[in-house]
């Protein structure tokens, strides 16, 4: 958790630094008031207005409700599905002693499924039932297991886990029987546990729950994409509306462009953080309440890293979208900007989704985890796979923050020079050409 706290602190400091950089010292009582109370400062006022207007907006309420419903569905439906899952049909060819049946039942429990034994008259009949899907697995005389298709090493479904577990446990039972051990000896061996493994370099050993954390990271990157798209659109449209309604001239007659921009970024960022925190808290509480496997193993760490990268992703992209918003003043002008701006996000999102679904992180995904435009999607996936160390995570966060500071500076310049230019869409060439400003 330590690196998460450090990353959050770095982002906060970087964002405030940009806000303060160009704020000159003011004289007089008015300035003294501004310094003494952050909320009464210009940036604070602008931020408070953004927060108030966004919270009031119908779009915010509807979107939040929609996301909560989707998250609830993603958590509750798998639990309900597991609860109502059909028992695995286990065909028995020949005889299976009660102790071996108990072993199969115990294996099923460890695979989180239930079993139903089906007597089969012959191996031929069992094979026929396997083909037709009437049974999932057949046990022949307690010595052989028949399944319909070869087992894939990447397949971790509960049915396959059951087959693996039954095969292993029946094999052990057979070995006990062949060794002619007494019941007491057999029990002792059954209770055998692996020796503890201690790393000399410290750190926690890996535990189970890999599937849960991968699923959580999958949901996390979908949420990051949806929320970043929403916040970036707010920023773009918000800046554009101030320009098109001409209120920008009134505002800039009292405050500096950088103050206005910083207030807007912080205001929308605060709303974003509040919305994301609400969704995460809701997901955690609901998962706990219904006993969802989404929070098993390292999944809570994935949730926190998703939150961190949502903040870092917003901090990076919001400046870009604000600068873009200052260059347009009509919806038709926005259309031509949205696609090129969205491409890095869409690319990162697709690569992260593909990586999370594949079962192992690719080399490309590991590279994308260090590039600020794609890191918000790629890094939570690596965390889900436990394929990243804390210092790699922190390194990527620092790269993102440094790039965000650079982007913020350029964006502030573009914003300052473009926001008061009305009429046709402003081109970047015009922004940086002194004679055309």
């Amino acid at each position: 958790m330590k690196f998460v706290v450090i990353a959050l602190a770095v982002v906060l400091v970087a964002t405030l630094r940009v806000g303060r950089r160009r704020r000159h010292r003011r004289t007089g009582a008015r300035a003294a008031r501004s310094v003494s109370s952050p909320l009464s400062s210009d940036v604070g006022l602008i931020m408070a207005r953004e927060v108030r207007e966004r919270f009031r907006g119908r779009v915010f309420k509807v979107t939040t409700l929609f996301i909560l419903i989707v998250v609830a569905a993603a958590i509750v439906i798998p639990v309900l599905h597991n609860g109502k899952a059909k028992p695995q049909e286990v065909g028995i060819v020949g005889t299976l002693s009660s102790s071996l049946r108990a072993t199969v039942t115990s294996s099923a429990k460890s695979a989180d499924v239930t079993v139903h034994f089906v007597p089969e008259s012959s191996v031929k009949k069992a094979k026929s039932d396997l083909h037709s899907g009437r049974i999932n697995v057949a046990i022949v005389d307690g010595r052989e297991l028949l399944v319909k298709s070869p087992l894939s090493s990447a397949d971790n479904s509960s049915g396959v886990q059951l087959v693996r577990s039954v095969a292993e446990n029946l094999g052990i039972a057979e070995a006990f029987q062949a060794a002619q051990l007494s019941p007491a000896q057999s029990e002792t061996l059954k209770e055998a546990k692996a020796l503890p493994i201690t790393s000399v370099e410290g750190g926690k050993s890996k535990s189970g729950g890999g599937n849960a954390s991968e699923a959580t990271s999958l949901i996390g990157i979908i949420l990051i994409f949806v929320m970043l798209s929403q916040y970036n659109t707010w920023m773009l449209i918000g800046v554009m509306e101030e320009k098109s309604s001409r209120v920008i001239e009134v505002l800039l007659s009292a405050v500096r462009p950088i103050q206005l921009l910083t207030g807007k970024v912080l205001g929308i960022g605060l709303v974003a953080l509040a919305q994301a925190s609400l969704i995460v808290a809701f997901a955690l509480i609901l998962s706990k309440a219904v006993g969802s496997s989404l929070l098993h193993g390292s999944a809570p760490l994935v949730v926190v890293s998703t939150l961190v990268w949502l903040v870092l992703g917003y901090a990076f992209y919001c400046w870009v979208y604000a600068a873009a918003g200052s260059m347009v003043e009509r919806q038709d002008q926005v259309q031509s900007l949205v696609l090129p701006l969205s491409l890095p996000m869409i690319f990162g999102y697709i690569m992260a989704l593909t990586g999370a679904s594949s079962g192992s992180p690719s080399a490309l995904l590991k590279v994308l985890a260090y590039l600020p435009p794609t890191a918000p999607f790629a890094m939570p996936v690596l965390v889900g796979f436990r394929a990243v160390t804390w210092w790699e995570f922190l390194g990527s966060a620092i790269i993102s923050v440094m790039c965000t500071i650079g982007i913020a500076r350029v964006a502030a310049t573009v914003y300052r020079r473009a926001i008061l230019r009305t009429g046709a869409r402003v081109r970047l060439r015009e922004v940086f050409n002194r004679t055309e400003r």
Partner: protein
Amino acid sequence: MVHVLQIEDLCRRFGALTALDHLTFEVPASQVVGFLGPNGAGKTTTMRAIFDLTDLDAGTITWNGSVVGQAERRRFGYMPEERGLYPGMLVGEQLQYLGRLHGMTAIDASSATATWLDRLGIADRAGSKVEALSHGNQQRVQLVAALLHEPELLVLDEPLAGLDPSGIDVIGEVLAEQARSGCCVLFSSHQLDQVEALCESVVIIDNGHLVVAGRVDELASSGPRRLVVRVEGDRSASWAEGVAGVAVSQVTGGEVRLVLQDIVDSDAVLELARGAGRVTKFVFERRRLSELFREAVK
């Protein structure tokens, strides 16, 4: 303290276009100063420059002798040419927000908002969204936004455009009242009769440079004498044509406006008029602002 805004040697080019060409003038306190000029003369660019809303190639803008900075601008009030308010925000909340950006406390901003909305006759619209207001009422709200924080300098770009006569009267009263309280008031308009009625002084610019500046009274009484003559039954005023030293300025409704050079004896003009018929009107008049403007920018 007596305030003064000084515009000194402003230059601004947009590519090949010269918007401001070494423009220099000042706006003294306690006066309503009309800022006139044809379209494209540079009025809006000058006003935007006061608020640092456009870059300058050269020149300085000072307030009481100091270069205008952010702290000074917060004490100015501005009404831009293209009206700007958040369309979906409530009138009262929006004004309080803008007041606070100018350094007012929440209580002061709230109190001033109520006072000014009441003064301009739109107190009942404080809870309405701006987009729900008529054009005239939006204009009033925009004026309140400029006045709310008791500015030391008021800069209004075309505040009378689109207003009905009662709206013009209200704004005129407010501007005069602000000037009386020691505020510097600079406003632009193309409604020259209104400007003449409201302003103590005018600044006329053309092609980015100053052409005329001074008190309206002095400018109106300066220059050649102007005579209005009505001769009964004579609508063409042909009797005045060809008289040495006399130029016909305007012939309307049976009256002729003459511009007399210094050498011309007005009694001789009267005799000429009597020769054309019975003279029912023979008066000297001041130079009107519209005439002054046309002469200055032609």
